């Protein structure tokens, strides 16, 4: 009846029980809070069933913030364990629990924080920057979000029911094979990543088509904002890379559930192929994360330098260059697997080439400041933190790309320091910059600048303390994923330093969460008095009210050059005339959410071998899809009169704040 799900799956050790209890408590508190506010109907109508990319983008960010807390908790547990578990002391986590924790940390942070943040930003910003009212496939967009959310939910379920994977965030075969890992953990990982990954592929298709087909009149490719360019490149990478992941995971699932031999040791399988395939996806993946952040800084730096971006064409070609080259470097993740020096050297050199376009981008940002007026607002501060840490991580990346050096530092904490420099120093600081920069656009008020600055100093200082010693630990021979080490290694002082750094980072993150709630609470004091353009922006999103109305643009703009708003402000083009027209917008539908919920049940069934549940939920998913495909009119009309009223209302509200 319940497959291999038994009462054993609900028994946990103390730390995990605490996590489960706090999760349940949080859930109950949230539900009662919404009930107390009588907001269920509002939540359903305005959010859960929405197909508006702005709303979906905000929901992405909400899930991201929740998963970020979870991933951060995992990280704290790891670092505290490593600070205590030396010599005779065993720390507070068992080896198998520790391995679940770091696997969950990687999976959560990459798939549900970083990817979610990228899609959140794309949903929020792309339609506004290209002058569109919607994305190309609004329903598909909602579906991508709900598949993503369902993967995130399955991650939380894995915390409460049974165990998570214990083979690292990429579950290398043959450790992930049924032979060495018979439990449900790897299956959780497979289906979490599979469900979220399919959502990502759909989202990638949606945004590629959106950028290609929905640009406003006059916006040629070489007039698109760099953020849109970076997303275009990232979406090309998603469409090319994510199917590799989907297929690889299917093969691993077939190995595990149906006893096939793609990646097994015995029976003619080749587990090295798993490593190969997973990195053929995995390396483009890290560029999917970082490219949009390059785009973010290409918007932030010019805006706060009161200049246009230096070397636009260079920036575009650098992005394209990185996109192409990111597909031919994946082998540098396994130089140590014993390939010939020819293979290793060629992939090492290809990897080094990535440094050229990245360097070009950094120089262009620097020269955007040259003869500008640099404002030290918090997005700009995050740019400094990004630049300092990202270049250090880039430099160590080049060291890692030389095979002989890689042999000495691969799988060590040096590697961990390198890629956390990339994802925290690069991606996360960029996301913080984007969050602060675009926050007023979607709320109408500004994030608390003072708290943001405190957070900035905590993050910069904490980052250096938490990750710089890891380079040294790597040189001392400390490998990654250690739940215990001998006292004679001499690593203990540095591990304590690292744990202190992690605590400082945790304070920084808490200041940000507090700052977010504080800003919302004190929103009346933080109103954006310009009504939509607080930073003196250059691109189309700042030309419309904040928060944008459901149709974004009352009049679809026409663009004559890059930075259209800059041109209007400098009198190079005339401001657009206010002419209102009838607008058709897609209507809400709960089907995306239904399919997401059913995928969660489907995934759960697959993990625990509850086959009837798998079959039922799969049929239900098909039925939902058929219902959606056979519905006729999916649009509602907003008349020109209503548009005028909404726009006038915005003007009135703006005046009342002054």
């Amino acid at each position, binding site marked *: 009846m319940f497959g291999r799900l038994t009462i054993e799956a609900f028994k946990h050790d103390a730390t995990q029980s605490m996590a489960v209890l706090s999760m349940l408590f949080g859930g109950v508190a949230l539900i009662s809070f919404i009930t107390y506010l009588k907001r269920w109907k509002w939540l359903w109508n305005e959010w859960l069933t929405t197909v508006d990319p702005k709303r979906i983008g905000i929901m992405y960010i909400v899930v991201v913030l929740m998963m970020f807390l979870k991933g951060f908790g995992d990280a704290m547990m790891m670092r505290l364990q490593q600070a205590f578990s030396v010599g005779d002391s065993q720390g507070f986590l068992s080896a198998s629990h520790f391995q679940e924790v770091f696997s969950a940390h990687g999976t959560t942070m990459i798939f549900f924080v970083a990817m979610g943040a990228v899609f959140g930003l794309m949903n929020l910003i792309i339609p506004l920057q290209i002058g569109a009212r919607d994305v190309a496939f609004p329903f598909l967009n909602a579906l991508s979000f709900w598949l993503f959310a369902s993967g995130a939910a399955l991650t939380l379920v894995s915390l409460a029911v049974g165990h998570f994977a214990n083979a690292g965030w990429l579950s290398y075969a043959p450790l992930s094979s049924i032979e060495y890992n018979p439990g449900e953990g790897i299956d959780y990982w497979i289906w979490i990543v599979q469900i979220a990954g399919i959502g990502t592929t759909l989202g990638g298709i949606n945004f590629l088509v959106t950028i290609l087909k929905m640009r406003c009149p006059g916006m040629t490719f070489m007039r698109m904002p760099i953020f849109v360019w970076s997303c275009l490149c990232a979406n090309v990478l998603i469409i090319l890379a994510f199917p590799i992941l989907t297929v690889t995971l299917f093969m691993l699932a077939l190995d595990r559930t149906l006893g096939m031999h793609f990646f097994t040791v015995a029976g003619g399988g080749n587990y090295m192929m798993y490593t190969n395939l997973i990195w053929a996806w995995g390396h483009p993946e890290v560029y999917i994360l970082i490219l949009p952040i390059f785009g973010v800084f290409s918007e932030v730096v010019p805006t706060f330098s009161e200049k246009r971006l230096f070397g636009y064409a260079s920036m575009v070609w650098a992005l394209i260059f990185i996109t192409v080259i990111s597909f031919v470097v994946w082998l540098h993740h396994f130089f140590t*697997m014993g390939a010939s020096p020819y293979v290793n050297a060629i992939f090492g050199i290809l990897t080094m080439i990535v440094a050229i376009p990245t360097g070009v981008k950094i120089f262009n940002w620097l*020269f955007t400041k040259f003869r500008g007026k640099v404002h030290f607002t918090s997005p700009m501060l995050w740019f400094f933190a990004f630049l300092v840490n990202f270049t250090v991580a880039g*430099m160590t990346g080049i060291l890692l790309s*030389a*095979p002989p050096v890689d042999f000495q530092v691969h799988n060590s904490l040096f590697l961990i320091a390198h890629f956390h420099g990339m994802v925290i120093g690069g991606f996360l600081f960029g996301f913080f910059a984007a969050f602060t920069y675009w926050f007023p656009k979607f709320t109408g008020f500004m994030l608390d600048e003072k708290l943001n600055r405190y957070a900035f100093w905590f993050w910069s200082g904490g980052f250096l303390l938490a990750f710089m010693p890891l380079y040294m630990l790597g040189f001392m021979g400390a490998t990654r994923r250690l739940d215990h080490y001998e006292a004679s290694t001499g690593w203990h002082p540095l591990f304590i330093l690292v744990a202190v750094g992690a605590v400082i980072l945790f304070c920084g993150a808490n200041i940000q969460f507090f700052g977010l709630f504080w800003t919302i609470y004190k929103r009346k004091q933080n109103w954006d008095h310009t009504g939509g353009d607080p930073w003196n922006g250059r691109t189309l999103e700042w030309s419309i009210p904040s928060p944008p109305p459901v149709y974004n643009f009352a009049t679809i703009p026409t663009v004559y050059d890059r930075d259209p708003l800059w041109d209007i402000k400098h009198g190079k083009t005339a401001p657009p005339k206010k002419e209102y027209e009838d607008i058709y917008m897609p209507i809400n539908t709960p089907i995306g959410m239904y399919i997401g919920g059913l995928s969660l049940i489907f995934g759960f069934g697959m993990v625990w071998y509850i086959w009837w549940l798998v079959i039922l939920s799969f049929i239900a998913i098909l039925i939902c899809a058929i219902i959606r495909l056979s519905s006729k009119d999916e649009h509602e009309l907003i008349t020109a009169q209503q548009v005028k009223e909404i726009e006038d209302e915005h003007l009135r509200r703006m005046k009342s704040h002054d």
Partner: protein
Amino acid sequence: MKIKKNPVLSMLFFSGLFLLIILIMQPLNIWQFGEKIVVLFPKGMIALEQRNLLFILQALMLIIIIPVYILTFVFSWIYRADNPKGKYDPDLVDNTVAECVWWGLPLILVIIASVLTWVKTHELDPYKSIESENKEIKIQVVALQWKWLFIYPEEKIATIDFIQIPENTPVQFELTADAPMNSFWIPALGGQIYAMPAMTTFLNLIANEKGDFRGSSAHISGEGFSRMNFVTRASTKEDYDKWVSSVKQSGSELNLERYNELAKPALGDKPLFFQLTDETLFDDIVNKFMHPKP
């Protein structure tokens, strides 16, 4: 949005402080931990070469990174919004010469680094035997769950979690696993290579000094992997010979039966020593997962 205090000054102050901390931290680290930083103070020729390549690449990179750091702060300082002396030229968005410089400069550095990488990757190929006047010794390595089995096929001895080698003598490791993928790493002597089931890989190392060096599995292979450490003892040739003969006399026998006992998943608590009676043991382990011959 206005910020009242002078943020630039405090920014520079804090950044300076951070950079100072980092700069001081590295010499402090080296002074404090010294010889324990094995990658930077290696004990073997291979590790030394690898470290030297690391230093050269690092120096090449700093040629670009130091100017970038300086320019970041100089530009931000000169062109800060409240500096009346800073020139303002919002239409300066293109300069072909400048852009050629920063496409060209990294390109030149990457070409230099590439040539270096190509040459060094071939020179330091882990499969290549090391030239020396002393006769190379062979050690077969089997990664188990979660211990290392070392077989000396010529000396006909075997050990668990302990290697002794003579100094200044090339050692060829032939690796396999009867476990998930592991990575065999002795940082004091040189880089790692994966030990994988049903196949063999090779690693050539040499110790140029006497001493006990820590080795470990650098790649996760299951629950006990963080305790998969072993000691590599480099000694004089005489001590090594003595050790071999003592193991031969005192050690218990290692045959397939005893091996199957060892291969069961368990932590390796302390080193064990054996005489090797089953000479085809290593090949049997490699071929274990193949289908039996018809």
